[in-house]
């Protein structure tokens, strides 16, 4: 007998009616996506819980993947037995013995939600506890502070036994809050902003501005890799690569250098807004933090924000750089973010950017030249990739097959 199930618990706060069903369906989908490599695993929904049937898969590999999925409050390895007291006793013993870690003291917590089962919870506690004590050495019961809590849940379809629980990532299942367009630069901040938006259930459409030949293949690969990391937390993500070279050249040629950064950001926001509309995304997410750099002063945000009335979510707005770095290290984007490739924000960077741009000036400078055709062209020739969808990425699939 071995651990053959994973029991998944999710927060039930604010979950009523249709919400709950959406929540559960999304969560199930996201779990299925995260463990798609484990083909024999099956995800099942029961009352307020989910189970993964492990079949022949390695439990630890599956557990590792569950840790990243938003919407899960905790999960445990479980053994399933028939609703028979002898089977339950033996299952509980095996579950206890096969658990990794300190196993000196334990307590049993039985719950009998299937009432036709003839033994009451209190009695079941004693039966199971006695069986474990009889078949182990140097193990004692400690009901207040046990190393292991052996939880026995008798349900209609069978009894599930778990020992200990692992904390989930919390948050809401990605996709339950709707869609947002994430401005993804390749730096440290924007992937973290995307991650935090996903934590609250937002599904992401990533938008990246690419200026070949001034930004190279590696810069682009870096953004693909960052997006790929974000897929761990939700599901596959569409990455929209905007050809930005011509527009950037036009800005460089027609806008005074002190305002070129501000105007470039306004253009980026206009383009992102149009992509958001096309994809039915209801907000834009970016990695701005108040006052962190010259372009992120309140005046600058005020001037850039003028071009749109779509909500702009700034999950990092009050965070310190160090806090952002910590999250990026924790989610695994930091090492990629710090790779030193030029992105479109750094190549034409003037040395004399204003830190307090004014709306009226920005508008006046923009009126001096017709940028609209350039914006249209950039939007029209957006290249869209689906990251995290292996079938679509043939090269990567070929490489995986080699290994």
């Amino acid at each position: 007998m071995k651990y053959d199930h994973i029991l998944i618990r999710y927060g039930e706060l604010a979950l009523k009616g249709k919400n709950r069903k959406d929540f559960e369906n999304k969560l199930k989908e996201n779990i299925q996506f995260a463990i798609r490599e484990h083909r024999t695993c099956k995800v099942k929904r029961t009352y307020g819980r989910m189970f993964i049937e492990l079949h022949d898969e390695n439990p630890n590999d599956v557990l590792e993947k569950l840790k990243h999925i938003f919407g899960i409050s905790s999960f445990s390895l479980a053994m399933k037995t028939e609703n028979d007291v002898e089977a339950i006793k033996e299952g509980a013993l095996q579950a206890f013995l096969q658990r990794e870690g300190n196993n000196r003291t334990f307590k049993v917590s039985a719950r009998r939600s299937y009432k036709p089962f003839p033994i009451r919870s209190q009695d079941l506690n004693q039966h199971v506890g006695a069986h474990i004590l009889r078949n182990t050495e140097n193990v004692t019961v400690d009901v207040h502070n046990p190393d292991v809590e052996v939880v026995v849940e008798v349900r209609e379809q069978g009894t599930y036994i778990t020992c200990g629980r692992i904390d989930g990532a919390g948050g809401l299942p990605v996709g339950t809050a709707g869609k947002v367009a994430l401005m993804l630069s390749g730096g440290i901040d924007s992937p973290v902003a995307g991650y935090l938006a996903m934590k609250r259930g937002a599904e992401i459409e990533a938008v990246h501005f690419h200026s070949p030949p001034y930004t190279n293949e590696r810069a682009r690969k870096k953004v693909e890799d960052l997006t790929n990391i974000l897929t761990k937390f939700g599901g596959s993500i569409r990455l929209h690569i905007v050809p930005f070279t011509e527009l950037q050249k036009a800005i460089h040629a027609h806008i005074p250098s002190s305002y070129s950064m501000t105007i470039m950001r306004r253009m980026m926001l206009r383009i992102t807004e149009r992509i958001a509309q096309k994809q039915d995304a209801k907000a834009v997410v970016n990695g701005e933090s108040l006052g962190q750099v010259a372009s992120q002063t309140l005046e600058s945000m005020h001037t850039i924000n003028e071009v749109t009335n779509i909500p702009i979510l700034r999950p990092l707005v009050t965070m310190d750089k160090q806090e952002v770095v910590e999250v990026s290290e924790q989610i695994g984007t930091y090492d990629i973010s710090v790779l030193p490739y030029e992105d479109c924000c750094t190549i034409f960077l003037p040395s004399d950017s204003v830190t307090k741009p004014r709306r009226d000036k920005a508008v006046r400078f923009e009126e001096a030249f017709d940028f609209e055709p350039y914006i249209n062209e950039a939007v029209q020739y957006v290249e869209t990739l689906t990251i995290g969808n292996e079938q679509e990425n043939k090269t990567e699939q070929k490489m995986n097959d080699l290994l």
Partner: protein
Amino acid sequence: MVYLDNSATTLPWQEVLDTYQQAASAYFGNPSSLHRPGVEAETLLGKAREAAASILKVKSSEVIFTSGGTEGNNLAIKGTAVEHQNRGKHLITSAVEHPSALEAFAQLEAFGYEVTYLPVNKEGRIRPEDVENAVREDTTLVSIIHVNNETGTIQPIEEIGKRLAAYPKLYFHTDHVQGAAHVPLDLGKANVDLCTISAHKFHGLKGTGMLYIKDGTVLSPLFHGGGQEQKIRAGTENVPGIAAMAKALRLAREQHTKEAKRMYELQKYLLQELEKIDGAQVNTPQTGAAPHIVNVSFPGLKPEVIIQALTKRDIHVSTKSACSSKLNEPSHVIEAAGLGQERADSAIRISFSFETIKEEIEKLIDVFHEIIPEMKKVMGA
């Protein structure tokens, strides 16, 4: 052919060769180049690193690709000794290491380092408490082979690691070349900082290997150049060889899960049968040995002669370790175990792969019965 010299090298698996060949032509770019072929080669390199790291249950950033066991041992030993020489110049190892470790230590001794060589018992095993007792204020490195390449003796790496955890300033390296396929170490549990692995011992290709370097371990490189492998090992990466190694490691672990029990049984069978051969003295310990190595001495007989007789019958084994078996020298491992000069002079190593079957061992035994009495008569042993 009955090939029983798998501790010297193994036959590369066909799937591994396929990976090598496809990777070598499809992803030939230099991983450091900026263009697409370069980026693709780098992507494959990264994937191979991730795959290997996940099998070893370590982080990708902790895996450095090398040319094999000798380089891994040299890099781990000299790299740490040199980097931390200002803190101390005392190093600890055992008397039964592979020559690539022992010779590295010998060079360091010539440079003014002091090396403690721990003794072993009759089974060829060091005592964990001896390691701890040898630790001094100026000790910077402990390096102990995991599975002995001549006798198969497993050293108590986990127990040593546990004890050394109390000395956070020194580094612990293990030579895992013989253990990687048949006695895989749990690197986290073993608490090692450095671990050497070589691909051609598990059906990968020669010229490829890995050094696990735990995060936070600083060492000085042997090769300087273009800054590859986190500046620890410069030189254009052998991408196809590395991809092939990742694949071989995965297949080897699958085989290990399936075949480990059978291999122990095979070894037990061979040990039993050797008992029945007049004069045969087994040097591999009864317990605590890797399942794929059996070392046996025929005192009075010259091992080269036995090898010749066997190879004529298409059975291939070796004298002690392949690296030094061309030299007509006694085995330093068996000498160190105190089993006597005669046994050290006449040791033969028989080593299995996952594919070795019982019929092959039976054939070997038959041939022993045939040739050993004959040789004894001729050589007067």
